[in-house]
């Protein structure tokens, strides 16, 4: 597979999956992780469809976990990044990092884009 470019939300979902790990990453936890870290409201339906799309692209693999009482005895579908997913994640973050470069986007100072 060549370089698979990730959309912004796909990138967030894959980063959350990586952060939560193979035993805790599933639709609900990924939604909450993204919401908690980015402060944006995340619709679970979007996470669900994004995960299905990533799975179809071969960037993540899924398996059913153990049934849980708080889920009515139903298992979550746990998400793991595939080797292609790791490659795509690295390529996308590398591209973003190289584009950001020395720009001080997180600081309070004006950026070139804002002053132009």
């Amino acid at each position, binding site marked *: 597979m060549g370089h698979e470019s990730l959309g912004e939300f796909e990138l967030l979902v894959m980063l959350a999956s990586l952060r939560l790990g193979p035993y805790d990453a599933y639709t609900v936890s990924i939604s909450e992780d993204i919401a908690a870290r980015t402060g944006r409201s995340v619709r679970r*339906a979007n996470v669900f469809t994004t995960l299905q799309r990533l799975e179809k692209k071969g960037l993540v693999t899924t398996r059913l976990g153990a049934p849980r009482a708080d889920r009515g005895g139903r298992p979550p579908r746990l998400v793991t990044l595939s080797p292609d997913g790791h490659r795509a994640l690295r390529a996308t973050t590398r591209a973003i990092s190289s584009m950001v470069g020395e720009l001080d986007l997180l600081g309070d100072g004006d950026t070139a884009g804002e002053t132009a």
Partner: protein
Amino acid sequence: MSAPGWTRLLLRIVSQKDRTDEVIGDLDEAHYRRLQQLPAWRATLATSLEALDMARAILWLRLSAPSVSWLDFKLGMRMLVRYPGLTLIAVPAIAFAVMAAAGTYEFVRQVAAPSIPLAEGDRLVGVLNRDVRTVDSYAPQPERLRTVARIDGGVGRDRGVPTRTAQPRDE
């Protein structure tokens, strides 16, 4: 506590069979967490809205999943547009090949098995009766040549098996 029954039923209807458990499980878990933070009515309302949103997303996902044949068709059209020279040669060539094949078939059919010159003559069929008896067949037994029935003229046969026997008429 589980999500409202109708939301679970809705997701059961719209989701793929192998995804039903996880989708309803997600909804149950989200509802369970909401109940710990919100009044019951607000949790129920939020879960209901989320179930509708999830059902919409699942339906959209299922309806927009392109089939392989559709992708092949789109690829074919794209190739025809991208290579107009090939299109100009291939399309008339295929049309000519179809026309030649159809013409040859029709010519051979007319020569080899011409139809009867009647309206819809090709629908007429010939029936070959392998059990034909003529008066000559009874020449050695002239005593049987008294009535039509007696020379089996009134005997119906289906593939050689008598199915209807005419009664000999009185002379």
